[in-house]
């Protein structure tokens, strides 16, 4: 095995051209977002490329940013948590019910809502980590259960009239952006730090890659997986609190619209920055890429179906591109 053969230049000269060689770099996704933005800016002019439109695109993603990061926490360990959207809605419903009908002060109501998220995370962990059940099925069931509970708690109606302190908590502006957006970015930053710069982030990555080898290396994989469900649940519950603040109310049936998009963003995001791993910056970039695409298409006057269609298509194309890139990387012995 000579090192020469590993030299990409040498290999490239040995191989005939192959379209599969077109591959993803760390910045492909960012580049695609910029190109897409440029294209729609040229098409729609200032109705798309204005400060106001850009900030509204960014702000529209604040809840999804939090939920998408929450989904990467378990995904990094190789576990799915599809209940996150349900947790967020339940948390919003608990918050609303406590503040509106029971006069609980906002801070305590918010803490109670986040505690709900922890309890849900603990239940998920119990079923998935300790009883070793299939995470996809368990957490999908949990999502449905939580959606039902949220509906029951809110009495089957849209909750409105949340206190001003709550809407301030989410909508007050700082440097021209509402706090909700800042919370999302803060969570991205924390996740970025943990994933890329701490041992725990590496442990998670290894747990997702080879659980047994990781366990034998002395990493407490069951704790890490449990912790991920707990933290993911808490983040989702926090997203629910912020959602209630942003909207000033809560629609208990809104869970489904937050169910899959975070995962689309997480998977799409794994094709950027630290390619092949679920990561924080990539996830953020993916969400902005998606909202640029969707907004741009909607400005042609197309109806709401565009959102779902574009999300789905972008995810499938991203997975395809990532899969092809992965094959090439394996063939060449590069690292994930």
């Amino acid at each position, binding site marked *: *095995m000579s*090192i020469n053969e*590993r030299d990409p230049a040498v290999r490239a000269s040995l191989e005939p051209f192959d379209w599969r060689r077109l591959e993803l770099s760390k910045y492909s996704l960012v580049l695609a977002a910029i190109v897409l933005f440029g294209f729609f800016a040229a098409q729609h002019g200032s109705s798309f490329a204005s400060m106001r439109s850009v900030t509204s695109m960014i702000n529209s993603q604040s809840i999804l940013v939090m939920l998408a990061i929450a989904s990467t926490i378990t995904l990094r360990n190789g576990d799915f948590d599809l209940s996150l959207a349900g947790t967020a809605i339940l948390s919003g419903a608990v918050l609303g019910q406590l503040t509106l009908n029971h006069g609980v002060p906002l801070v305590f109501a918010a803490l109670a809502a986040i505690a709900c998220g922890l309890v849900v995370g603990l239940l998920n962990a119990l079923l998935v980590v300790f009883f070793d059940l299939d995470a996809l099925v368990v957490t999908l069931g949990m999502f449905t259960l939580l959606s039902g509970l949220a509906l029951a708690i809110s009495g089957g109606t849209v909750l409105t009239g949340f206190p001003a302190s709550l809407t301030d908590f989410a909508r007050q502006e700082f440097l021209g952006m509402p706090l909700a957006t800042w919370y999302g970015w803060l969570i991205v930053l924390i996740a970025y730090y943990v994933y*890329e*710069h*701490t*041992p725990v982030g*590496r*442990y998670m*990555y*290894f747990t997702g*890659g*080879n659980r*047994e*080898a*990781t*366990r*034998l*290396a*002395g*990493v*407490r994989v069951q704790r890490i997986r449990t912790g991920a469900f707990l933290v993911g649940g808490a983040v989702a519950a926090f997203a629910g609190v912020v959602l209630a603040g942003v909207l000033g109310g809560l629609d208990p049936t809104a869970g489904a619209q937050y169910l899959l998009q975070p995962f689309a963003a997480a998977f799409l995001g794994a094709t950027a920055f630290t390619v092949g791993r679920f990561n924080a910056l990539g996830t953020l970039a993916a969400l902005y890429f998606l909202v640029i695409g969707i907004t741009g298409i909607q400005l042609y006057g197309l109806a709401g179906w565009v959102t779902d269609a574009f999300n789905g298509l972008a995810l499938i194309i991203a997975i395809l591109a990532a899969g092809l890139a992965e094959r090439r*990387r*394996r063939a*060449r*012995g*590069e*690292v*994930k």
Partner: protein
Amino acid sequence: MSFEPRLRVADLHKRFGAVRALDGVDLQVDVGQVHALLGHNGSGKSTLVKVLTGYHTADSGSAEINGVEVESAGQQLPLAVVHQELALIDSGTVLENFGVAVGYGAHALGRVAWRRQAREVNEILAKFGAPFGAEAELRDLTPGEQAMVAIVRAFRVFESWSQPGLLVMDEPTAYLGGSESDKVLNLIRAVAAAGAGVLFISHRLAEVRKVADWVTVLRDGRVVATQDAADLSETRIASAMFGEVPARRRKSTPRVTSHAPLVVSQLHGRRIRNASLTINSGEVVGVAGLAGMGQSELAKMLGGASPKLGGSVHLGNVDLSNAGPRKTIDAGLAYVPGERRQAGLWIDASATDNLSLPHLADYYKSGKLRKRSEMMDARILMRSGDVRPPEPALALNSFSGGNQQKIVLAKWLALKPQYLILDDPFQGVDISARAALLEMIAERSATGMGALFVSSDYDELAEVCDRVFIVYEGRLVREITGAELSSAVLFAATQSGEPIGVEKEA
């Protein structure tokens, strides 16, 4: 009925580079014969089987099954191979498992003729005295019965030929208990009586004695003995298998005792009963046994990988009786597993990330993982462990098996363990890499590291161990030490649970 033997191998040669895997092998399995093939690791047994199945093409010589020359893979021959892993589908019935191999014999319009199939499978099961029917769920059968399914199914393949052919059994009883393996052995006799020829590969002489008519021993690709199974003697077979070479003894460097001994007392586990042993600093203690006797479980328990169900383990005054991997590592033990790709490392991650994993926290300083120093350390470890190429950023799947195993060992030696627990980690590692790995262990033991070394390679054990325990059905039954320690003695000793010496011949 023709008079062609079921298998005739004549002057078969196969080289891999400089290694003569088969060096002029002659072998014949007659109609109705059970022919045992013995040989140590690397003797050429598996190469022979792979030539028969067409996986390898011989360089010269011939192999004929029922008089038909074996030429290539995909050739239709009356040959069936039953491996230790039975290649059965757990979630199906016996009938469905037959269908997978033999076909389902559909009615017109493609509807499966289940009823006819069931009748035929039941007939053949009854013919061979199987205590279950075609509708039995495979997962409800005992391991021995599952082996029977595989064997009867193999025989059924012969029914599409004018006469039965050759059945190759590759260590079919390695993980079966006594009465279970008896069922399988009886069935093998019955299959031979029905006209097949059986090539029976095993390390268990007691079974060979029970089932075989004739015995052939391979060593270094050559037939070194071939004889009637009736007058089989353990010592004679052992010396045929291993030759009369004096055991290579490891240099008796003055032992450094830098650590407290590792004391294992009355340890109980899933496959281990009442194991007591002490390993001293600087000592390499081997564990040898037939496959499935519990030796691997012993290593896993000491490494914290498997639960310890009773008894105690102490290292100095640290109690490891209930320790999992983390506590075991922290106490100064390192466990090197056998299944490299499943348990030793993560194949898609870089060498650096794999090497630093057990002590990653050391690189986390003032709030940041020091990846540069992690990478530099990895490069040093790879250089000193003779890993090629010493490129720490490369993913592990781009290294050869031998180099992957060097990385695994380097990962654990980097922790400077007081004791190293080796769970037969060098299987499938090429000879030069293996020598380098053993050298690394010997070097460390010279400076005080102790080791428990489970291995299926008796040469390896004889070379590096100070003493070797023999494990039989989960118990440590003998300890072989000093001048007595040689691969031939180890082989003979693993054959029975007798605590006293091997049978001595006049």
